[in-house]
Structure formats: structure tokens, C-alpha cells
């Protein structure tokens, strides 16, 4: 494992300035993805998964600010690039697809045009042959009757269709990295599987690295090589999927898995973990943001969190791991 990872995030911290004070949404987040690898980023809603992705893509809201960290990609630090250089990379080298595909597409532009826009922008096609290239992309994401669908507006298509269009836009320029932020949330189960298979297959074809953001552990286990568990803006555990399922070390990860009966469960059924995420605006946040919910807390937990390697590519941030 000496290959340079496709993306290596190190020590990423992000703050949001809000009316009621500064929120430290991410603290010292770090993980990496290698070529052809699929890494799941899991955690309950509000734990900072999307913010991590937005920070890497450089599309944080104006209120958000990266306060530390690097995101090494293709020899450059994405977080240090200026907007112009970053915009060159986005959509060509690294792409992202989102939750709610129907609102994630421009409602008054034909979907074929939206794919063509990206192709033209990144030199994947000229204005003249972009429409045909767009139709090719539609074929690739297995949209039936692509010539006709290219002329459709998003409101004329189903959610699943719209997500395929999103995938077509994201993969149009064959990026090295795809970040898929809950791409199947809100789709029915059958469509979910189809979309996941499609992403996996297209990624496999081109050796693309994929970060798959989800709150569905079962889905993560099924489709991903490694799983990174987030809680309240911290990464609490990272391990190969099978190992995590076999032996979770962080108390939170263990609770999560226990709350996952069999294959189909998800973090929606998190009622069994007491308390919610702590209020990140608090000034007296403990170093371990799980400590107020944790049954294994000891005095040691008041010290800055450790980062322990407990196995092959298995890391846990806890003073008293299981």
C-alpha cells in the first residue's frame, strides 16, 4: 500500500459563522481514498458528511470557512487552490452527485444541454458535437430513448432518471474521483440498487475512486471497501468494511452496528443510542464529542483525542476502545 492515494484529506477543520455564534462543524478530519477504491462516509444526519465533501469541492456556503487542513489531490492541495483553478478541476478531475436529484438539476434547462454544458466547459466536446456526446452519456447511464430524453426538462423525469442524469453530468469528463452524497436517499429500494450498481460499474470501468456518503450502514457494507464513521464533526473510526462489522472498536460505531439488525437497517433507527448530537456552538465542548452519550467514559477522556491504529488500516479515536 505505497501507492499515492487519489485523495488524502488531512486535519480538515471547518467553521460556520452564524447569528448565534461560530460553529466548529468539522475538527481534524482526515482520511484517504485510493484509485479504484470505494470508501463510505457514514454518520447520522448533521454529523458533517456533506460539509466535508463541500469543503473538498470548494463549494461551501459563504458562511463556512476552512480553518485548517489539506486535501491532496493529483499533487496539489485542493484547499489551497484559488477558485479559478479549482473550477477547472471540478467536473473534470473530481465530481460530485447529490441527494434530491430533482432539485439538483437546473429546472428550466433541457437535461441534454446540462450535460453538454459540462462537456464543453472542460473540453470534452465542442459546441457542435456536444449534443451528440451528451446523448452518448445518456446511453452510458442506461437511459432508454436517450435522444428524446435529452430534450426533456427535469420536471418531466422521475427521481431515478434525474439521478442518472446527475451521474451522466458528473462522469461526463471521466473524473478520477467521485463524491456521491446520499445519491439514493429518497429513491425507492429497487431504483436505489440500480443506481448503486451503475455507479459501482462505471467506477470499476475507469478505476475511479469513490467516496460514498450515506447514513445507511447496510448499503455501505454492501458497496464499499472501507467505512469511515463520523460523529459530530469528528472521525471516530475507520476500517475495512468487513473488519468494522466483525469488530467495531469505537463505542459509537459499536452502538451503530448493534442498532443495525441484519442487512437492511439504517441509521434512521438510531433511537437506541441515547441523546443526540451535541450543540456544536457550545464553548465547553469536551474533546470527545461522544462523551456525553458514552457508557465507557473515564477521566482520561477529558484529554485531547488519540488516534490509534488498531489493525491493518483500522484507526479509532477513543481512549477506551472496545
Amino acid at each position: 500500500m505505497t501507492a499515492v492515494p487519489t485523495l488524502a484529506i488531512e486535519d480538515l477543520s471547518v467553521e460556520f459563522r452564524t447569528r448565534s455564534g461560530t460553529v466548529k462543524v468539522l475538527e481534524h478530519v482526515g482520511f484517504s481514498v485510493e484509485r479504484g477504491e470505494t470508501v463510505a462516509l457514514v454518520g447520522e444526519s448533521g454529523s458533517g458528511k456533506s460539509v466535508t465533501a463541500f469543503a473538498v469541492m470548494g463549494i461551501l456556503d459563504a458562511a463556512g470557512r476552512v480553518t485548517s487542513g489539506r486535501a491532496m489531490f493529483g499533487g496539489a492541495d485542493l484547499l489551497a487552490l484559488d477558485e479559478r483553478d479549482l473550477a477547472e478541476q471540478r467536473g473534470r478531475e473530481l465530481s460530485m452527485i447529490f441527494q434530491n436529484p430533482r432539485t439538483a438539476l437546473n429546472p428550466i434547462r433541457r437535461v441534454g444541454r446540462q450535460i453538454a454544458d459540462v462537456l464543453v466547459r472542460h473540453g470534452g466536446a465542442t459546441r457542435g458535437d456536444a449534443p451528440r456526446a451528451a446523448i452518448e452519456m445518456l446511453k452510458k447511464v442506461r437511459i432508454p430513448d436517450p435522444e428524446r430524453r435529452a430534450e426533456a426538462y427535469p420536471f418531466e423525469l422521475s427521481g431515478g432518471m434525474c439521478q442518472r442524469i446527475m451521474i451522466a453530468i458528473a462522469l461526463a469528463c471521466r473524473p478520477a474521483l467521485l463524491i456521491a452524497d446520499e445519491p439514493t436517499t429518497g429513491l425507492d429500494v429497487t431504483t436505489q440498487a440500480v443506481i448503486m450498481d451503475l455507479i459501482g460499474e462505471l467506477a470499476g470501468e475507469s478505476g475511479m475512486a469513490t467516496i460514498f456518503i450515506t447514513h445507511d450502514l447496510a448499503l455501505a457494507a454492501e458497496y464499499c471497501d472501507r467505512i469511515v464513521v463520523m460523529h459530530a464533526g469528528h472521525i471516530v473510526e475507520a476500517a475495512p468494511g468487513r473488519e468494522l462489522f466483525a469488530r467495531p472498536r469505537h463505542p459509537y460505531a459499536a452502538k451503530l452496528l448493534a442498532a443495525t439488525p441484519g442487512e437492511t437497517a439504517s441509521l434512521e433507527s438510531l433511537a437506541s443510542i441515547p441523546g443526540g448530537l451535541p450543540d456544536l456552538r457550545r464553548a465547553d465542548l469536551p474533546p470527545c464529542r461522544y462523551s456525553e452519550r458514552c457508557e465507557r467514559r473515564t477521566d482520561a477522556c477529558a484529554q485531547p483525542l488519540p488516534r490509534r491504529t488498531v489493525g491493518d488500516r483500522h484507526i479509532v479515536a477513543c481512549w477506551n476502545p472496545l
Partner: protein
Amino acid sequence: MLNLLLSRLATAIPSIVGVVVVTFMLTRLLPGDPAAYFAGLAASPQAVAEIRTKLGLDKSLPEQFVAYVGDLLSGNLGNSLSTGQPVVTEIATRLPASAELTLAALLLAVFIAIPLGVLAAVKQGTWIDHVCRVVTTAGVSLPVFFTGLLFAYVFYYLLQWAPAPTGRLDVFLSPPQHITGFYLIDSALTGNSETFWGALRQLALPAISMAIFSLAPLARMTRGSMLAVLGSDFIRTARASGLAPRTVVFTYAFRNAVLPVITVLGMVFSFLLGANVLVETVFAWPGVGLYAVNALITSDYAPVQGFVLTMAVLYVALNLAIDLLYGLVDPRIRLDS
């Protein structure tokens, strides 16, 4: 497409009915004896009685209403007391002057307000945003007749950049051949550059006064809807796909943001048609507004009522046109119907 047209037409019909009922009521509301009003102050009792029968005031209200609608349908709005001319023809000859002024003001307002609103949204919280806020609040606060007067004083009396505020064209210039009734267009069509510039110089101050007044709703709406669009999911997608900032702001955000702006055009026209009366008075602009004001002064009621009705019908028609335009521009409405 035809569906769209028909459904929008159907919504305009109750408005027209309402307008006709209200204007009918206004003709009967006159305190005292409407016949005496319509006959004028100096009229003899016989003349009043004659007017009464002519207006059908001796009949029952429903009968009067039917007669009123019948008159409207045959294009009869009564005659002006002071000129003896049919109100319909007088309004029709003056309408182009008002229309030219109003449309010029609208164009000006749109060309200032929309870029201002877009800039304020894109640079939210910066000085340009504050300028936008101040300009729009000040704009609606300025009494349009007062702005007009100030402009006339500064640009005509002090600086002498503008011609005297006395109508559409300098007395030494002859109006262009009548094609559309718009002096600017007609003089341009006939290649009469002297008249064109003359008309433009006369038009500038009144149009600017009106434009400033009607800027605010446009700029505010543009800013608001642009902000909403810039924060929406699909803009994030566009940015995440690396589209150039120019494409994101103009092709993606602006085209979406401009749709709601079309819907405030109705309110803008309400502002403009009202302001038009005041500005025409200040600049002696020979349009329908000035006509109505002059009639008011001489207690000549038929022209005033004809004016109110014409403006209301025009306004309903404009709103209909705006609705149709919206339907045409937004594919979600165009393809749904």
C-alpha cells in the same frame, strides 16, 4: 399552448366584469344629481333633464347597467363637456403619447433595476448591496411629481441641458408622420433625425422620473429571487461541475431568477400608470393622464370616467400579457398546459 391562452383569458374575464361594475358604480356615486354634474355647472334645467334621459338616469339601476354595458360595447364613453368631442376619440388620440412615456419608463426601470438587483445579490452584504437597498427605498419614497419638478428645475432652469417641460416636442419641430403614434419610432422609421432627437430630449426627464419611482419592486424582486436561486441545489450542482462563474451566474442562476421578476411587472405597471398621471401634469405631456386631470379641474366627468375605465381595461390586458409571457418563458408551465 392554446390551453394556456384560454385558461389565462378565462381568468381575465372576471376582472373585466369587476372593472365594468365598479366604473358603473362610480358614475352613479356622484353626490347630488349625476345629471347635473354631467351637464356642467352652467347648464339650464332643461339641459339637465335632457342629460338625465340621455344617460338613462330615470330608469332602474339594472336597466341603467344594461344601457351602460351596451354603450361600452359600442365604444361610447360619452362626450367631453369642454370640447364636445366623444371621449373615446380624445382618449384614443392621446393614448400613444402616454404609452410611449410609460414604456420608455418601464424599459429604463428594467435596465437599471435588474442589473442592480443581480449585483446586489451576487455581492450580498457589500457596499453595492447597501446602495441597492438605499436606492430602492429612496426610489419608492420619492413623490414622482416632486422628482419631476426637481429634474425640470435642475436640468432645464439651472443647467439648460433639457428643453422646457412643455410636452412631447418643441414647438419649432413638427411631429413625425403618424405610423405607430410613438414619436421616437415614427421619426426613426421616417429617418427624421432632428425630430427623433427632439422627441428624445423631451421624453428623457419625465421617463427618468417615472423609472426611478417604479425601480424598487423590480430591483427588490430581482435581488430576492436571485439570492434564493443562488442558494439552491442546482446552483451547487453547477458549481460542482466546474462551470465558469459567468455561466453559473447568468445562464443558470439569472434565467431562473428572472421568472419571478416577470410576475412583479403587474405591480410595476400599476405604479407606472398612476405615476403617469402626475408626471404628465408636471411636464405638460399631452397624454391621457393630463387629459383626465384637466377634465377634473373643469368638473368634466365623462373624460375622467372614460380614463379610469380605459386604464383599468389596459391594465387587465397588460396583466394578461404578463401571465402569457410567464407561461411562455417557463417550460414547467408551457409544457404542463
